[in-house]
């Protein structure tokens, strides 16, 4: 039941020792990147000041903005020829954050995913259908490598094409799937259209749910529809991608792999550490990466540590499912979107007024983005064709930026209520 028993059940003292050694190594490695070299020099930091794991608090945080500002190679800590892969966070163009891996980084990441999938119950005899996008997005390739390491038969189906997904599932008797939760719900409607019942007509027994936060209620609903066990997966491209934390068969919190990531939870306002059990922002330091080590990276994800030992026997602490974000990033259909991206694009389009509002809606099992856009008063000429052209242009331009096709409603200038202070840009009406 364990992929690496000695690591997964590691004792406190051994873990601390392992983490300290790995942290020193990481600081030394990071120092070779242009960004950390300067940062450490300016702040008189180095591996020598790391006497215990808690000395991590002497180091400044790293943020997504830092990654963007030092795009593309500012965080790379090895000669470029040692890099074998780049990945990029989903949904962003131009300002995308890129992450680089060495061959060893890929191997370590692969092992972590194998550990996760094995923990949830996947074995060599399984048929694994990977319904995630392959490419820049880390979710597809990450799980593919992990499943291959376990030795399962992989169907690299990729995302979308629902009827083919169902066909593959039935033809090759898929037993394990990796799927975005909102897509799992959508797919269930396609099963119904085909007069199929996934409980009766497929052999799937395990699902890995990733790429977007979801509620316990949504998991239960998916499990109910499909008759399989669904496991929550957590990761971010800056920390490899998936495989950072994962649910065990207890399905009560995700074990965060503390041999590979140094975990801190901080108050997002004061940035001071909070006690175990208290909610805060997850901050991670990579402990095994060499291509692009990151120190005290602010994930902007809100969670808490679940205290107490897990009955599964693994000693790595558990985090609760992600409760939300400390920034304004939204996740729709597994794609990360910042309202800023929408704003920037809109303001480039002639005819767009000053204000807009993003409304996220869930109709049945389908999530949609509706954007109300104020028309520029000066642009209005009473010409319906011109307005319809503007609406279509906005849809096209946004689609190329955020990779999702929004519905766009043109509204009158000054008709969107302006809040006091910071403008309200997003209304999330999605309920589970």
């Amino acid at each position, binding site marked *: 039941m364990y992929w690496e028993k000695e690591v997964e059940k590691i004792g406190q003292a051994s873990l601390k020792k392992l983490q300290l050694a790995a942290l020193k190594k990481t600081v030394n490695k990071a120092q070779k990147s242009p960004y950390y070299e300067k940062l450490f020099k300016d702040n008189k930091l180095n591996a020598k000041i790391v006497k215990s794991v808690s000395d991590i608090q002497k180091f400044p945080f790293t943020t997504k903005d830092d990654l963007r500002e030092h795009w593309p190679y500012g965080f790379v800590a090895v000669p470029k020829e040692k890099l074998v892969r780049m990945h990029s966070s989903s949904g962003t163009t131009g300002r995308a954050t890129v992450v680089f891996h060495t061959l060893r980084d890929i191997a370590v990441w692969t092992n972590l995913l194998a550990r996760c999938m094995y923990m949830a119950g996947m074995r060599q005899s399984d048929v694994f259908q990977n319904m995630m996008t392959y490419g820049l997005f880390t979710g597809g390739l990450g799980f593919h490598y992990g499943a291959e390491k376990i030795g399962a038969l992989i169907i690299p189906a990729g995302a979308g094409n629902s009827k083919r997904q169902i066909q593959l599932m039935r033809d090759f008797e898929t037993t394990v799937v990796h799927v975005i939760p909102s897509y799992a719900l959508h797919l269930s409607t396609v099963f119904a259209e085909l007069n199929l019942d996934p409980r009766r007509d497929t052999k799937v027994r395990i699902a890995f749910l990733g790429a977007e936060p979801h509620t316990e209620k949504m998991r239960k609903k998916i499990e109910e529809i499909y008759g399989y066990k669904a496991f929550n997966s957590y990761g971010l491209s800056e920390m490899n991608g998936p495989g950072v934390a994962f649910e065990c068969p207890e399905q009560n919190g995700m074990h965060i792999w503390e041999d590979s990531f140094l975990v801190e939870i901080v108050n997002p306002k004061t940035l001071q550490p909070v006690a175990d059990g208290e909610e805060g922002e997850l901050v991670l330091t990579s402990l095994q990466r060499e291509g692009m080590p990151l120190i005290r990276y602010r994930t902007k994800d809100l969670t808490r540590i679940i205290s107490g030992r897990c009955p599964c026997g693994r000693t790595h602490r558990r985090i609760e499912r992600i409760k939300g974000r400390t920034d304004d990033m939204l996740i729709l259909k597994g794609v990360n979107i910042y309202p800023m991206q929408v704003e920037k694009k809109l303001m480039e389009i002639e005819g767009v007024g000053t204000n807009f509002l993003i409304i996220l809606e869930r109709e049945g099992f389908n999530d949609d983005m509706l954007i109300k856009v104020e028309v520029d008063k000066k642009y*209005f000429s*009473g010409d*319906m064709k011109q*307005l319809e052209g503007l609406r279509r242009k906005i849809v096209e331009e946004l689609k190329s930026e955020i990779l999702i096709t929004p519905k766009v*409603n*043109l509204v009158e200038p000054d008709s969107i209520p302006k809040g006091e202070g910071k403008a309200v840009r997003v209304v999330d009406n999605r309920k589970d």
Partner: protein
Amino acid sequence: MIAYQLSIFAENKPGKLAAVTGVLNREKINIRATTIATADTFGVVNLIVDDPKRAEAALSKAGMTVHLREVLAVLIPDKPGGLDSLTQLLHKEKINVTNAYGFVLEGSKTAVFVVDVDQTQKTEKLLEENGFKTLDTKTLSAM
């Protein structure tokens, strides 16, 4: 002559038209003709009124998005074939009509056909040359 059409941007929702007519009522502005074009969630209300400039000011003041658009108000006989003679001419001259609507001035005698075309000045000249009378706002409101 050139007439002015009042175009108002309007979201497609209850009460929108009432807000427009409410303002015009308070200002004692008379409406001669209306059309509404909608595309799903939004639309444009087009009005021919007796005092377009004052109407524009009042509606703008009420927070609406208004545009005064140049259109041709063509006088046609109110009898079978009255409109046809006009549209045949526009067709022959390859003039594209983007919007049009009409109203009767005096039953069985005269009607006005409002056309929004791609080349207003050229069309106006052409119509006059072919014996059509175009009305300006002042003439329209006096009728």
